[in-house]
């Protein structure tokens, strides 16, 4: 592996003697937080770089005098004259723009677009919390994942869902990282909300393909979520009160300009209302009580400047969903959630050589407890990971940007731990298995600027997994090339191979909290994917970024369950698995405008996603439930005045593929007391639900409080009250008196009608 690195060294030796480096850190002047992905460029040229995850930039230049431009979305662009005679460190603080998306950010958008044209990186979407906050989703809750679903190639699982289905992949094929720590289940309430609190999150990067070599372990996407560091200059309290949830954050310096903290929490309160409804109906014997449901989550982060070249970041997440049903006799408790923590040490050897070392822990578990008199039943599953990784970054010259590193993870799985007991000892059943596996990877990559027009990014990742005496190895080449035909047109191509060593076992079409993570083992080989992408990026009239990408992805060793599989309390779970292949392909189109009073984007995806399993559907290829032929999203943001921003979002998608019975027969059973109608299903997912479309409107109105800032966010979900299908079923119609069956009808169930909501947000 490191031969590759050695191979690259001659290039770094070519480091020109007379070149010097301008480097430093970019921060927000208001909060002292570092700015990631900010642009640093020589004014009037295409020479420029972006700041890395520590907000650090490195710009190699010939000695001389330069006008250096620093810009970042939402901040005033700063131009500084720099006289370079030797390596120079220049730390810069940028002032925030009063208006979030005003004219003044034009320059930074231009630079962002230029960056998109010059980098070989493709298939990547970025979104800041700031942008997401303008686009409230269901119940007025801002959700960065749901906003990401508005980008091409990223599909939701359906109404309200924050499950991600990236380029035809499954929902377990996403590597979700929160400050470098893995998050196993990124949703609350079956995907209606994501676990990422918008007040704590700085932004996300989502890779749909073109995966950099430092990422591995999942087939279809990398979702890299970063928390904010907290204000290093002063204390802030911010929060919001919404229709179904409230949130509160506190942040501030631990030691001014040196260290900071951020603590953020939120909780839903639908349960308060459902309890009231239940109480008011107590006297009605027919009333079946609505179960309790709520979730809460906390984020915490602390960052410390240990010295000029060392920084330490501590980051944590804890969240739980609760679902309870209790009456005098019957007691049902279900809870699930993630615990995630990471400690990252960022060290700078020089202005060109950095290392990030991260130790992280992640746990996901669910527990169901059920009690009746002296009998108790419990079912739990969990996965716990400990990960240590080091990522090095070395900018050897303006032509070579090297990255290399290694990671190792210890996974512990408890799969379907079932216990049933009675106090008198007559019942005592236990089942479930524990597994342990070690996953590891080493990688090296180089971004090679061959000429101003031609850039090549190539790398190799060697990954592996050890479990139960079996060691799997995977060689994952990554290659990307871009050729810039002109100032405004770039052609890009990419190939990546990925391996996935842990698998999500789901006995439902949707993602449920009871899905189980399972390791690769002698009987379960790792999943593998190969993805090919070709794309064009064009800057039109200086303010519209047009891009299109065509992709083909082949997935091997896909895992599913045989019909009627029992996954709970089954000690021989592997016998229920079936293996197959998947392929997906399509083309994405994207137009974005970030300049002017009206900004936004339009995305369109034409795609296919299929699976083939010898043991499912009689071996015939079938479309996945989320196979979506056409997918359109339109997002428009209009700055009406300094105090008012209006937004509109429209989505359209081909209906989900769905299984419906085509025939039926009457089943009398042994007793024959009531005939039942048994449905006969044809090929899997052979029907289409009606198309999904919806318009949401939003309005952010800034108030003028005496202290701090505040706003009212109004939103209307599903403005024209479209009945989007959630599922379809066939109903048997009976004569009320005779109970005779008189016919059958198809019924479509929808979840969310038009929902207006208002949220009050504050910061002081």
């Amino acid at each position: 592996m490191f031969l590759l690195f050695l191979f690259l060294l001659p290039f770094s030796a070519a480091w020109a003697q007379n070149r010097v480096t301008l480097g430093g850190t970019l921060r927000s002047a208001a909060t002292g937080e570092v700015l990631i992905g900010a642009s640093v460029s020589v004014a009037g040229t295409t020479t420029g770089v972006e700041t890395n995850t520590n907000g650090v930039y490195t710009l190699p230049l010939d000695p001389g005098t330069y006008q250096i431009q620093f810009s970042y979305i939402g901040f005033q662009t700063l131009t500084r004259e720099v006289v370079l005679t030797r390596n120079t460190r220049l730390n810069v603080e940028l002032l925030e723009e009063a208006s979030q998306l005003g004219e003044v950010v034009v320059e930074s958008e231009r630079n962002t677009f230029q960056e998109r044209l010059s980098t070989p990186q493709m298939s990547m979407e970025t979104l800041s919390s700031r942008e997401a906050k303008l686009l409230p989703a269901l119940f007025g809750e801002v959700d960065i994942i749901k906003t990401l679903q508005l980008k091409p190639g990223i599909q939701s699982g359906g109404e309200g869902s924050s499950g991600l289905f990236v380029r035809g992949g499954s929902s377990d094929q996403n590597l979700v990282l929160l400050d470098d720590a893995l998050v196993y289940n990124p949703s609350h309430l079956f995907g209606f909300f994501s676990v990422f609190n918008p007040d704590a999150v700085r932004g996300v990067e989502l890779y749909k393909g073109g995966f950099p070599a430092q990422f591995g372990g999942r087939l279809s996407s990398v979702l890299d979520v970063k928390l904010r560091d907290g204000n290093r200059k002063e204390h802030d309290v911010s929060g919001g009160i919404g229709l179904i949830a409230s949130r509160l954050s506190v942040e501030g310096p631990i030691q001014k300009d040196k260290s900071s903290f951020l603590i953020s929490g939120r909780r839903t309160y639908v349960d308060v209302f459902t309890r009231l409804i239940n109480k008011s109906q107590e006297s009605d014997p027919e009333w079946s009580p609505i179960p309790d449901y709520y979730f809460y989550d906390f984020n915490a982060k602390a960052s410390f400047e240990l010295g000029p070249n060392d920084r330490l970041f501590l980051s944590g997440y804890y969240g739980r969903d609760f679902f309870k049903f209790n009456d005098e006799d019957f007691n049902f408790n279900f809870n699930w959630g993630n615990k995630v923590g990471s400690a990252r040490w960022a060290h700078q050897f020089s202005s060109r050589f950095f290392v990030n070392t991260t130790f992280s822990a992640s746990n996901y578990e669910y527990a169901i407890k059920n009690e009746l008199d002296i009998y108790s039943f419990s079912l739990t599953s969990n996965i716990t990971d400990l990960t240590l990784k080091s990522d090095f970054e070395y900018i050897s010259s303006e032509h070579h940007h090297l990255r290399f590193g290694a990671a190792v993870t210890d996974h512990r799985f408890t799969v379907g731990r079932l216990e049933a007991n009675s106090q008198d000892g007559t019942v005592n059943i236990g089942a479930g298995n524990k597994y342990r596996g070690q996953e590891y990877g080493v990688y090296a990559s180089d971004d090679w600027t061959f000429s101003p027009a031609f850039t090549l990014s190539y790398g190799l990742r060697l990954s592996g997994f050890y479990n139960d005496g079996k060691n799997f190895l995977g060689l994952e080449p990554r290659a990307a090339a871009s050729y810039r035909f002109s100032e405004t047109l770039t052609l890009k191509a990419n190939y990546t191979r990925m391996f996935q060593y842990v698998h999500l076992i789901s006995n439902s079409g949707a993602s449920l909290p009871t899905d189980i993570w399972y390791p690769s083992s002698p009987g379960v080989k790792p999943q593998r994917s190969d993805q090919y992408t070709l794309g064009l990026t064009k800057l039109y009239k200086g303010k519209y970024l047009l891009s299109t990408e065509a992709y083909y992805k082949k997935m091997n060793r896909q895992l599913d369950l045989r019909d009627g599989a029992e996954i709970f309390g089954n000690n021989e779970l592997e016998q229920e698995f079936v293996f197959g292949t998947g392929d997906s392909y399509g083309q994405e189109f994207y137009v974005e405008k970030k300049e002017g009073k009206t900004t936004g984007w339009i995305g369109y995806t034409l795609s296919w996603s299929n699976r083939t399993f010898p043991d499912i559907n009689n071996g015939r290829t079938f479309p996945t439930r989320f196979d979506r032929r056409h997918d359109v999203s339109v997002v428009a943001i209009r700055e009406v005045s300094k105090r008012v921003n209006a937004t509109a979002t429209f989505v359209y998608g081909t209906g989900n593929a769905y299984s419906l019975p085509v025939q039926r027969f009457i089943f009398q059973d042994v007793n024959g007391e009531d005939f039942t109608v048994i449905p006969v299903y044809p090929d899997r997912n052979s029907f289409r639900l009606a198309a999904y479309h919806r318009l949401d409107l939003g309005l952010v109105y800034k108030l003028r409080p005496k202290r701090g800032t505040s706003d009212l966010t109004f939103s209307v979900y599903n403005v024209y009250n479209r009945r989007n299908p959630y599922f379809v079923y066939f109903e048997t119609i009976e004569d009320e008196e005779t109970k005779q069956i008189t016919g059958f009808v198809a019924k479509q169930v929808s979840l969310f009608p038009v929902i207006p909501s208002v949220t009050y947000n504050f910061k002081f």
Partner: protein
Amino acid sequence: MGISSFLRQLLPLLLLVSLLSSCDMEQEIEVKLPDMPTQMVVECYLINGEPMKLALQESSSYFAGPEALLVEGATVTITRNNGTPVTLKDTVLVDEVNRKVYTHYSPARVRATPGDVFTLVISDPKGRRLTGTTTVLPRVPIDSVGYKFNSKPEQSQEAYLLVRWQDNPDQKNFYRLLVHKNDTSGIDSQLDAEVNDRLRNGQKITYTTTYRFDRNDTLTVKLFHLDEAYYDFISSVEDARRANGNPFAQPVTIKSTVAGGFGIFTHLNSDSQTVIIK
């Protein structure tokens, strides 16, 4: 177990959202179903000492008329251990007590001992052929049946039911437990549970219900010892029925115990006990 009751309780929560507006979130739609050839469906339970009888019908397109389609002119035979085939005559019989309908009948009574193999062959003038075999299993006796009241005031007290039996450790075993309330209206089903010994091989198996029985209920408890094929069939039928209307379910293929159509052909053996909740 826990999961299915969880999902059942989840739905009202999801639909609660629709309380936010008075709109009806459920609407009738039109679905165009493809034409597929219909298939023969058989239900035949052999019971010791009773005449051989079965119900034969045709599957129908989902939105066709509600009446069951009969198979015209089918030849039906049942053979015990390579003996002489018994032909069942095409006769519609209605069992008023159990509210069952049979289409084929032979006065020959079933005489079976554990290990006997029965074979069913049905052919019809369209050239279709449906076959099935079943092996007779020994009866498994119920050890004990008990009940216990909850702590509510005496007038509104309810009891749970508890049934125990011994599992045979030498083989995989499958059971079905049916409980009926005997009342004037005939049979009133209270419980239908499929149980296997995967986690309790060789142990005394205890099955408990929720609190659901009232004082003075007279309950008949029947324990059937099933073969794996019947267990799979009854589970798949139950899963398919539930999948229709559950957004989280995958479609289910009916696992028939017969080839050439849908349905069940099995020998039924059961032990039963009656208990009065006092």
